[in-house]
């Protein structure tokens, strides 16, 4: 039996293409989960969380991510030079030889000179969401790991969200914990 002629083929392919394209156009504004929508980030320093924070005597999250501490406001924060320097004072005194063995610290030294560290923010709330850290940490007594994943034990720098913080994910927790599910409790 004779195969399908090319005109026919093209016609069909185009039809399908049109359909799928149309669908995707519509999907354009659909909330795409951050972890596959965004390409992996690059962090300025190969920061090893476990090394800093593991174990009972490890540093608390709030110590470095200070904005998110229980006492101050809503805006998430990343550690700045002075935070690191509180401990790493010797960096400035280290000889280049020593530093060569510790590339991370060598970088840190540069950043001290520059005055800031260009961290890439991994978990970024959308502009239209009101998310107070203290409400969740201090009041609801959530562990950081619940929303940020077990960063504490990561040896590699965080390059992409460990948890996909979608709205449904928020809502589920809010429903379980009987927190407010009003739209405008979080949307602003």
């Amino acid at each position, binding site marked *: *039996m004779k195969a399908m002629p090319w005109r026919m083929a093209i016609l*069909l*392919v185009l039809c*399908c*293409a049109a359909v799928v*394209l149309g669908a*995707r*156009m519509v999907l*354009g504004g659909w909330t795409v989960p951050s972890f596959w929508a965004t390409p992996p980030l690059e962090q300025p320093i190969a920061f090893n969380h476990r090394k800093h924070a593991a174990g009972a005597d490890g540093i608390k999250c709030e110590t470095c991510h200070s904005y998110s501490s229980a006492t101050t406001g809503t805006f998430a924060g990343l550690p700045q030079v002075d935070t690191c320097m509180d401990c790493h004072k010797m960096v400035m005194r280290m000889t280049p030889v020593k530093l060569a063995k510790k590339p991370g610290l060598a970088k840190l030294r540069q950043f001290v000179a520059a005055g800031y560290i260009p961290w890439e923010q991994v978990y970024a709330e959308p502009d239209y969401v009101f998310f107070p850290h203290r409400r969740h940490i201090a009041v609801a007594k959530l562990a950081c790991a619940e929303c940020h994943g077990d960063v504490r034990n990561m040896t590699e720098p965080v390059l992409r969200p460990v948890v996909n913080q979608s709205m449904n994910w928020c809502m589920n927790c809010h429903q379980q914990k009987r927190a407010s599910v009003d739209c405008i409790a979080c949307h602003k």
Partner: protein
Amino acid sequence: MKHPTENQSALPGRDGDQRGIARRDFLKLAGAGTVAAAVASTAVAHAVSGALEVREDVFPKGGPESTVVSLCGMCPQRCSMMVREIGERAVSVKGNPLDPANRGGLCPVGLAILQLVYNPDRVRTPMLREGDANAPRWREISWAEAIALIKSRLEAIRSGPGAHTVAAIGGGTSELAGLMMARFLRAFGSANFIADESAQPSHGQNLTQSISGRVAYDFENSRYILSFAAPLLESWMSPVRQMRDIADFRAGWLGERGKLVQIESRLSTTAAKADEWIRVNPGTEGVLALGIAGVLVRYQLYDAGFVKEHVAGFEYGPEQKSARGLREVVLQDYDPAKVAAITGVSSEVIVRLAHEFAQMRPALAVPPGARPGRQDNGFLEAAVQTLNALSGVIDKPGGVLVSREPPLAAWAPIKPQPDEAKQPPLRSASELAAAAEGGHPYLPSAVFILGTNPLFGSSPIRPEVLERIPFKVSFTTLLDETAAHADLVLPDCTSLERWEIRTAVPGYALTSVGVGSPAIAPRYGSSPAAQVILDLAKAMGGDVAGALAWSDPGQALKEMLVGLHDAAHGEIFSERFRREYTRPEMRAWGWPADTSLKRDEFVELAVARGGWVDPRYSFGDYASVLKTKSGKFEMPELLGSAPPLIAARPGYPLDLNFFQPLALMSTMGANLPYLQEVAGAPEDWPWDSYIEINPATAAALGIEDGDWVIAQSPTAQVELQAHVYAGAMPNVVNIPLGQGHTALGHWASGRGVNPLKLLPVGGGPVTVRIVKR
């Protein structure tokens, strides 16, 4: 595998293979197509969603939050405001609830101040003018160069025409800079510091009590306010304070509801909100006032006690210079029928008003202050103050008061300069203008202009006048009309970026001091005028440097505040004041001052809270409020003369009336988009000028709402849109002020028209005709 269409209609076929193959091909192709499309579409979809997103950099960045108490610099009231900051950015302002004058409120102008702070049109560096004012070319120079330049010019002047020929105008909205400049001039050898004349209606008091400035009206304790075209709820002295106090007054916060009567030709916002609107022919308000006075006298309704004790020239007597006292004047020239004929207000109404005025005590009459295009200012204010004298509310609760100087510590005295005494100082803008034009007593050789824009308003200082002054330095935030004519423009910063002080609230009796600390660092390379003056002084060296030896204006300001601590009465802004200021006894005794604070603690607290207040006011202290030779309230003699009335020029039948919308009352307001959006009052007329015409008049001229018309005066014409407004008096047209800038910035310049150019040179009354474009 099953083909979808099989379910659609299960028809047994004739030729199985044929069908099968066909379907398989179909599916293959469909599959291939889908895959291909899916891949291709991913890119497209992302592009699309990208195209629809907001620009990333518009996302407001977060950060640590703080609040700083600062002063508003948009109008003479200068409310204390709290600036909310995120990191280094000021993101919103609100009124300081502890400030007795604004009590947490702010007017649209103040609320829009951030659009001035972050205005793209701000002057960003000192600029030197090259070429003439009409086609200025600006050369950007450094601060150091600027200072050096001024220094050299001043030294040249000192050795040439003499230090006393240097002058300065301004300080209208930056009081600290004003004080600094005055001190600088004194130290340099000149007394020509001219405080900005912000149309303060103190002319009447000047005539009758020979006091100027510091005049206050005690609205909140009054029960009856007779406003003679005073825009009390618009651009009058201190808008926020008035709105609040008149609202309290009308709501009857002392138990009885007050009555506000607005006497005006136009249905203004104030007239609309007033309890009664008396329609009076424009320019005849003074006549109406005397008509009411006549009724008061005729029916013995005035406060005879006060008149007997404290009024001179009420009736003809031995100590009287002029032939007639006020009594004779009003009885002879201003009987209701005659007044009614002139003012268009029926004599019944005049008599009723007089009776209300006499019965609802304390009753207060309020003048409008200087009005461009009206010659009757002196007459009107004198007449109005006469009414106040007759109702005996001079320096009484709910009456006309004189606000007391706060006990600020004076700066160290400076040693007088020889030049200063050489010639009489120039005391007003008109004197400066005269000196510049006539060159006598002497030609001003240099003038500093601080944050004021005389060339835009109806000031006697006109471009050609300014051109005659060899060296003009302008401290300004936006490049306004006056700055455009200056030789050197120095970027001043807004009140949120500098130390600021407020020693009095115009028209408010309560003694208070407002303190503003810089909420954010000076932006765009600007620098506070006060700071520049200090730097200049340092550069000049000698006595000048000695007189202004502070490292920064804040230091000088705090030095003044110490006086408040030492005065040992009054208190730093506090909740207590908000709770208790309504109690009359507070005004009698005030509070024992909190003496526990040390000087520096006191100063820091005052800065943190935003100021200091002393509610005490000693009423009936006539020694200090009646400064006339006779020590009495003197009935002004000009009332005896014929009232200045406007006669329409033939061919120009329409009386022209100006009004100042609140939104554009600040010299810089026109370049703030938020204010342009609410410009126009009482009805919204955003982003443009307009001329209010009465429906009947408009119909007669064949004009409809929104038509473009040309308003022609004998000397000039302007083109603008007609607003057919039922609140406009027949044959009287009203044009808002504040638009029609030729400079200032890209939002303001070239927008609308400045109706003042319809006025003949040097002001004076004008009537117009309207023609359709």
